[in-house]
Every structure is written in C-alpha cells, then in structure tokens.
C-alpha cells in the first residue's frame, strides 16, 4: 500500500499536513505525538520581523467552527530560523514554512533568508483576511497575485505554494493567475471572512470585528473550490477547510487534492492530524486502494 505523494518534486510519506496557524511550529503538539507521523508540518506565518498581532478577543466559536483574527502574531524570521527550524529538523517530516508580509519586498526578504535553510517547501500567505496591509490585498486581485508569485519565485530556491483566499468571486481565476506567475503548488482554502455579534454585550465577538471562519462548517465550500481549481489548473493542490477525520480528507482528495491539511480540528483534538493520517490507511485497506494517488481527482 502506498501513501506517498509528490508535491513539486518533494516526496511526502503521506498526504497529511497541518494548516498554517493552527499548529505553531509543532512544539506544542510534539508533547502529544511524534510529528514524524505527518507528511509535513506547515508552520504558522513567518514575517521578516516580529508581529504583535491583533487585540483580544481574537477568536469566537461559531456553530461547527470558529472565527479567528489573530493577526499573524509571529516572532519573525530570525527567531524562527534559530529556534523553530532546528526543532522541526529533529522529525522525519517535511517542513513547509508559511511566509507572510506587508509588501512584496517583505515576502521576498523572508523567502531569500529561507533559501539557505533546510526547508522543503514555501507557502506564501496572500490570503490572510485579518491584517490590513499585505496579505489579502495580494490574494483578491489576479494581477497582484500573479505579480507577487513571479517576484517570490525569483528569490525562492524551494518550490512555492501559493495559498488562495476563498473570499473571491471566482477561485479559478486566482488559481490561473498563480499558475501563470510560476507557482508550483496551490493550497486552499484560507479562512472565509465572517462576523459574530455578542448580543449580550451588544458588540463584536472579536476585537477585529471580522475574522476568518474555519472548521467543519466551511468544508463544503472548500471541497467545491478544490474541485473547481483542480479542473482549471494543472498544479498539484493541497486541500483544506474543516477536515476533522479521514473521511473528510478523502473527500478533498477525490475532489482533486494531492495532499490535505488539518487545521481547526487540532484545537478540538490535539491528535487530529495524526488520526487523519492513520484513518487514510484504514480507508485504503477497506476499499483495497493500492496507491493513494489513484484517489486524487477521481471524482469528476
């Protein structure tokens, strides 16, 4: 039975990874299980300098999911390289660094710094809905997305994943723009912009007013977008959005994802990502699937 998948020339032992921002750099979850069980760890967004993030409250639960507006709090590339990368290197898993920035130059600076580091893939976060500058500004305009993809590719040694926002009219237009810009892989979806109002305090449930919605409630939207994207471009896709178990992951794979990320489910169960990886094998045994790649995009 083969669970290995390839992403732009990088071989993952299985298609299960962690969604950026839900897993830190892995340290907190390594207290629960050996991270080597995962195909890859995708880190929380890293910028060229420390970011303090948004005011609290930063999260709110919603039915079947949550809103967050953390605001990409992160220690910056220096601390990341010195502290977090050596930690992740101890595990037999691929390392995918999520890169965030406010300007094209910010992104390129981080990408350039990472070119000399033991990182397997880069994920460019142009889709965070919670920071005013940068981020989403690049992710909702196809021309800007193509341009930043092209710029980042000039500095990148590792293959580049462009992480797409669902907060657009036509996801395929964005996918094609990233492909034209030279992206190697696409990941989707980032969170869907939402709002919750606290009727007792008569104010917004999170300080940022709006937040990114995630969790199982968004899964049908995510599966649909992965399917549409798979039909529109040739690039491999990392699918995510509400994956809680192996059944959810199989849906994404059948819709066209070569790999999947587990995000919000890590909060509901710290073992969630490992359980998805184990569950995929169980699914393969049950349906006598020899090679997981047979499932990728099998539903058309």
């Amino acid at each position, binding site marked *: 039975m083969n669970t290995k998948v390839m992403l732009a020339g990088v071989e993952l032992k299985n298609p299960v990874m962690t969604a950026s921002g*839900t897993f830190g750099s892995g340290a907190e979850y390594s207290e629960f299980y050996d991270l080597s069980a995962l195909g890859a760890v995708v880190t929380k967004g890293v910028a060229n300098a420390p970011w303090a993030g948004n005011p609290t*409250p930063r999260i709110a639960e919603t039915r079947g999911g949550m809103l967050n507006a953390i605001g990409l709090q992160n220690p910056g590339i220096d601390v990341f390289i010195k502290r977090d990368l050596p930690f992740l290197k101890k595990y037999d898993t691929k390392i995918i660094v999520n890169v965030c920035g406010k300007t094209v130059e910010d992104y390129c600076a981080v990408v350039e710094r990472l070119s000399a580091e033991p990182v397997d893939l880069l994920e460019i976060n142009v889709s965070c809905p919670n920071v005013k500058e940068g981020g989403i500004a690049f992710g909702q305009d196809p021309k800007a997305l193509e341009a930043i993809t092209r710029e980042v590719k000039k500095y990148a040694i590792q293959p580049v994943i462009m992480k797409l926002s669902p907060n657009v009219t036509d996801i395929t237009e964005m996918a094609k723009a990233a492909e034209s810009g030279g992206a190697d892989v696409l990941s989707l979806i980032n969170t869907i912009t939402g709002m919750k109002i606290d009727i007792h305090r008569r104010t917004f449930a999170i300080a940022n007013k709006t937040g990114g919605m995630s969790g199982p409630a968004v899964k049908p939207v995510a599966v649909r977008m992965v399917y549409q994207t798979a039909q529109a471009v040739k690039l491999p896709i990392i699918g995510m959005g509400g994956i809680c178990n192996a059944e959810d992951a199989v849906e994404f794979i059948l819709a066209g994802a070569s790999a999947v990320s587990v995000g919000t489910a890590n909060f509901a169960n710290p073992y969630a990502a490992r359980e998805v990886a184990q569950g995929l094998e169980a699914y393969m045994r049950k349906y006598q699937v020899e090679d997981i790649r047979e499932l990728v995009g099998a539903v058309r």
Partner: protein
Amino acid sequence: MKYRESAAVVEQRQIAADIYSLWIRTERIAEEAGPGQFLSLYSKDDSRMLPRPISICEIDREGKRIRMVYRVAGKGTEEFSRLQAGDHIEVLGPLGNGFPLNTGKKKAVLMGGGIGIPPMVQLARELETEEVQVIAGYRDELFLTDELAAGGGLCIATEDGSAGTKGNVLDAVREQDVTADVIYACGPMPMLRAVKAYAQEKGIECWISMEERMACGIGACLACVCQSKEVDSHTHVHNKRVCKDGPVFLSTEVEL
C-alpha cells in the same frame, strides 16, 4: 505532561444559581495537577469544537479525582452541567503554570471574586506560607464557604450586603484590616485591576490568575494573549499566552 483522557464523572451537583460542582476521576491528570492550573473540557456536540477552559477547585491525588466548580455561561457549560455520575467527558490537562506555592513569605491573602473563587480552595490547602487568609467576594449567593474556611481564616464580602462585608474583596480587606505579605487573586478584570493597584500601593507581591478566550489551550494558536511588561518567550513581543505562560502572572508582569 499533558494528557487527554476520557474522564469518568464521579459526582455533579448544583451548589448555587448557575454554579455547578463536578468531580471527575482521571487516569493521570490529578496526580500531576496543581492549584491554579486548569483543564480543557470538550463538548460531545460536534457543533461546539473548542474546549472550555475550567479551573481546578480541588485535587484528590490519591483518589485520582479532580473537582471543578464552574458557572453555566453558555451551551457548552450547560451541556457539562447535565453530566451525571458514570458519564464520561473528554478532558485535557493539567494546563497552565499554576500558582507558586513557596514564595518565602509569611502571610498569604487569597482573594477570589465570583467564579474566580474555586481555585482558592486547593491553593489554600497547598500554600507553604505560615498563615493563610481567604477573602471571597460574591454577588449575593454564597458557595464553597465550608471548603474555604477549612483552608484558613475566611472573610466574606457580598455586593448586596447579605453576608459579610457589603462590597467587594478590597472592601473586606479594609474593613477587617487584613494585612498580607503576598496576595493571590482570581476574579473578574475590574477586581484584578483593583487588587493589582492595592498591592502596588502597599508594596505587596501579588499573583493574579487571568482569563482570556482560548482555542487550543496549549500555547499554539496565540488567541489568548495578554499584554506583558517583559518581552514574551514565544514571539519576543509583549504578548504572554494566558494558557501556557499563565494563567498565573505576577501582577507587575502584565498590563490589565
């Protein structure tokens, strides 16, 4: 170590309006838990994904039992309040740093306000100071008074004046002329601000337990940060994580 367990409910009892007492039996959590730490409790309902952080009220390490006293504040805690002996609940813990038990000080004053009162029960029991005085501030209805009185001298304040001093915990401190070498406080933010100011004015070391909306409960998601004076160890800004660096902080360490 942190453990995720399916814990057996030993006893559930309503002890005041909206306030419930829940004893659970754990495999390993109780043995490693300390006062001021908390557990994450998970709903059985898939539509409620996030764990509810609930503070530890009492620990029976030999019996491997933990008591939590909590307020029903929404659908999640309402679900917990319906648990009966023999039921099981998914829990994760022990989480957070807990209160320091040996500060080298002589007299500790423990101030609990509202649903910040429960952690003071186990703290009073385990503190290594010579003298322990507990001050509990209620809105009106009292709870946990027997347990608190057993841990040391107990002063009560009620907002409506139905028992003890009329007013808040600091009103009781002034009325009873309570002195302290070290203060431990848990309660609503206005109370914590007032206690911090009081401690600063009197030059008393003061430990406070904070609350903030949490998602993961283990320090990964960075939802529950509070503003800290010193640069934090995670991001190297001024955002300490309530769930991991806290919930207990030196009052001078955080901006309230």
